[in-house]
């Protein structure tokens, strides 16, 4: 073999310092004197990546991290990690439509990890043990208690999430809400069979316990003026939500036997809290294709009436060309509604309400051809001659809600540089609770950076929250994982008897087992594969991880190829 002494040395990546001997020692000795590292053209780099679940989560939870802690049975640590971004695990575990689960890489092996059930399990455990939130201990918080005050308008998920983050960073926060109970839409519009009120109340209590001032029954513009708010607080976060029901645009001026979905759910909640039974006509029609419509229909079934949902969109799974024509409700909700005897009519719109005098006898529906016009506005086109009559003694419109900015016009116009932030359903396109929680988090971080006046901190935060390097199953070696079946919470039988919670939580054994199903996509779980398979002993195991000794790595790529979770990237060697 020719003398390789003359090879140039490009030892930029030396992780482990050693006395570098001449390239080719003439004296007998250890081969470690000869650095094979400069043979390589590619080199492995350990690289944490964002798993698709975190990438998709509207609240940007680090799902892999808290599942890994749960898999080690460090339940409290897992809950802290989870609630860092989302202080409502028990709530979201129940009601969130778990967008995280559909891209789960595990579905290419067997079935997706039951993330929402795990979230709920941790949330319920925290409630049962009375765990308390910890203050943030990152560089942003500092040691001093802050004197600045922040007002949060709206005690819904966005407002509470924002307040929670600010409290953890040591700011004093006052929350205003016009309702008599905190929780916003979570409190008023989610039926008990999906989210028991006591669960929500306990999670809100845990946030309030951090020392927030809660001013309920207070509407900005009526009970306190906008200017007072501006003067008393250094920053204002507006998360007023959408509480104004959208009205039916038909030629029907009577309000008799017509309700909005939100009002119905609120009235129902009031009646339930007084242990009264709401009486409904025998047949009820619900208009709308969203989750509120499905919630309303399922509640109506529980009150003993027949219900027909009139939905302008397509059913799930029929959108071969256009996602926008699929009904917006969650597919699981629809399946459960159908199982409970809810009758759904698709591609149908209400043309008029059929009345005999004031008395409502039903609605006339027609086939809807086009749901949205070319500007994207809801503007259905009906086909003549397709009319049908749906008998109903009550019609409930759940066709969306809008934000009510009355009395807040000036604040609405203000910008972040004026110290006013907007968030939640009122301004975001996605109207799911997790997105509201996420928007509260974003606003809080922006407020913290702004109050501290540190642009650098803000930029750093933006860089951290920016999600890149998504990992797909193609970069992983799924055959290294054992198959394990997914655990589900049990469904109660006789669900139409009242408003008992339908889906039960996971048992302890199931939760432990489910947490272990996480593939840890893109994040090392120390399986030792790279260490075992390195032909050059260039992977060095240390307590909690590995180092690559670039002095000897020849860049064969075996470690990257055999890494189950795709944690290792091969990158070209820079000259």
């Amino acid at each position, binding site marked *: 073999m020719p003398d390789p002494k003359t090879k140039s040395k490009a030892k930029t990546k030396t992780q482990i310092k050693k006395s570098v001997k001449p390239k080719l020692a003439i004296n007998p000795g250890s*081969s470690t004197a000869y650095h094979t590292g400069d043979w390589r053209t590619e080199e492995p780099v350990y690289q944490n990546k964002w798993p698709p679940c975190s990438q998709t989560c509207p609240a940007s939870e680090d799902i892999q991290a808290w599942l890994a802690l749960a898999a080690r049975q460090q339940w409290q640590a897992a809950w802290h990690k989870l609630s860092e971004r989302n202080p409502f695990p028990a709530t979201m575990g129940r009601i969130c439509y778990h967008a995280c689960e559909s891209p789960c890489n595990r579905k290419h092996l067997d079935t997706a990890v039951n993330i929402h059930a795990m979230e709920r399990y941790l949330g319920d455990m925290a409630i049962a043990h009375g765990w308390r939130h910890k203050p943030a201990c990152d560089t942003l918080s500092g040691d001093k208690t802050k004197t600045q005050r922040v007002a949060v308008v709206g005690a819904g998920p966005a407002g509470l999430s924002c307040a929670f983050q600010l409290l953890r960073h040591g700011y004093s926060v006052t929350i205003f809400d016009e309702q008599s109970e905190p929780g916003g839409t979570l409190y008023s519009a989610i039926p008990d069979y999906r989210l028991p009120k006591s669960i929500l109340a306990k999670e809100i209590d845990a946030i309030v316990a951090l020392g927030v001032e809660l001013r309920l029954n207070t509407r900005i513009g009526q009970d306190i003026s906008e200017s007072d708010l501006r003067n008393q607080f250094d920053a204002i976060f507006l998360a007023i939500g959408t509480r104004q029901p959208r009205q039916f645009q038909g030629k029907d001026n009577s309000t008799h036997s017509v309700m909005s979905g939100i009002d119905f759910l609120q009235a129902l909640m009031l009646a339930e809290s007084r242990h009264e039974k709401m009486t409904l006509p025998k047949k009820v029609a619900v208009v709308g294709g969203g989750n509120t419509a499905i919630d309303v229909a399922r509640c109506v079934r529980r009150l003993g009436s027949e219900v027909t949902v009139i939905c302008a969109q397509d059913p799930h799974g029929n959108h071969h060309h256009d996602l926008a024509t699929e009904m917006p409700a969650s597919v699981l909700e629809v399946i459960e509604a159908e199982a409970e005897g809810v009758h759904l009519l698709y591609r149908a719109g209400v043309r008029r309400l059929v009345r005999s005098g004031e008395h409502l006898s039903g609605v006339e529906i027609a086939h809807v051809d086009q749901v949205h016009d070319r500007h994207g506005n809801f503007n259905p086109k009906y086909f003549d001659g397709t009319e049908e009559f749906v008998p109903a003694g009550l019609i409930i419109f759940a066709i969306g809600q809008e934000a009510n900015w009355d009395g807040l016009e000036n604040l609405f116009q203000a910008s972040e540089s004026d110290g006013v932030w907007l968030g939640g359903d009122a301004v975001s396109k996605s109207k799911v609770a997790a997105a509201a929680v996420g928007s509260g988090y974003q606003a809080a971080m922006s407020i913290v950076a702004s109050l501290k006046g540190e642009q650098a901190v803000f930029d750093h935060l933006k860089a951290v929250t920016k999600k890149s390097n998504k990992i797909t199953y193609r970069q992983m070696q799924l055959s290294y994982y054992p198959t394990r079946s997914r655990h589900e919470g049990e469904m109660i039988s006789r669900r139409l008897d009242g408003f008992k919670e339908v889906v039960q939580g996971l048992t302890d054994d199931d939760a432990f087992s489910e947490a272990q199903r996480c593939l840890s996509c893109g994040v090392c779980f120390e399986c030792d594969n790279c260490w075992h398979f390195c032909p050059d002993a260039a992977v060095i195991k240390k307590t909690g991880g590995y180092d690559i000794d670039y002095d000897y790595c020849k860049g064969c790529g075996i470690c990257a190829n055999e890494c189950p979770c795709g944690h290792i990237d091969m990158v070209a060697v820079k000259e």
Partner: protein
Amino acid sequence: MDSRDPFRHNVLTSGHRACSGCGEAMAARMVSDLIGPDAIYINATGCLQVFSTHNQQSSWQAPWIHSVFANAAAVASGVEAALRARGKDTPVIVQAGDGGTFDIGLQCLSGMIERGHDILFVCYDNEAYMNTGVQRSSSTPHAVRTSTSPPGRLSQGKTQLKKDVISIMAAHHMPYAATATVAFFPDLKAKVEKAMTIKGPRFLQVLSPCPLGWVHDSALSVSVSRLAVETGLFPLVELEHGELTGVMRLAEQKPVEEYLRPQGRFKHLFGSKEGTVELHHLQALADARIRRYDLLGADTQWTTATAMQSQRHGRGGYAVSDSLHERPGSQGAQEVKADA
């Protein structure tokens, strides 16, 4: 002495001159780390000897001796007899390639077994003479292209079959003979550890992919050796006193094509009529081995699926004694050339 890694000895340490992605270097490091540095390693000529002791620089952090191709087992017999005479029970390990086992070293090996020496003979089987330029050996499988079995008008690579050396070993009625490969570390570990508890001659054949001679991407060494097992072409078996005592069951039988495709040494089989016949032949060979060892039905400790599963914090590593790190001096391992 190199002690960079607190979790294993690196008996075969870094700086050796094996090709990038060498399956033999991987296998030898695994086996020697499982045995540990307190053993005497005898090496026949071959890739392993050449790349690990290049230019007076040794990668061995254990007593190591090189003999010639033919007589590694004979040298080891002498070492073992000498140790026995002095009342020592230091383990003696022979390492050889397929050339030093199947062809040139076979008679010495046979003698060593017949005489009942307490020696573990490990054959790193990369299925040709890779060190000298990929010449066919009796271990080279059927229809493989090597520099001395080029495919062409008259043949589709090697016309003969791979020598069934494990059956030859078992026919010696020896205490333990097994096959293993790098892809299933828990299996390899169990076999080495079992072999080290048995007295008498033991034989281990470790399939070691060679990116150069097999003509596959250097990153695929582990995958290729795994596919060799999963297709049934390289059954993982254990034979004690001539009787089959254990096999690795296949979780599912993969078609041989999956194994052959990534390897350039089988490239000539794809796209010609004659090649297709040989593909069928290789599939039939795999099927025959599966039937012979009952690889699909046997009641086994683990299967190809369970043996490779990853776990948080690994599935066991190497026993590390403190003696390595306490040894005085930082000089490299002493290299003794028997034929110098």
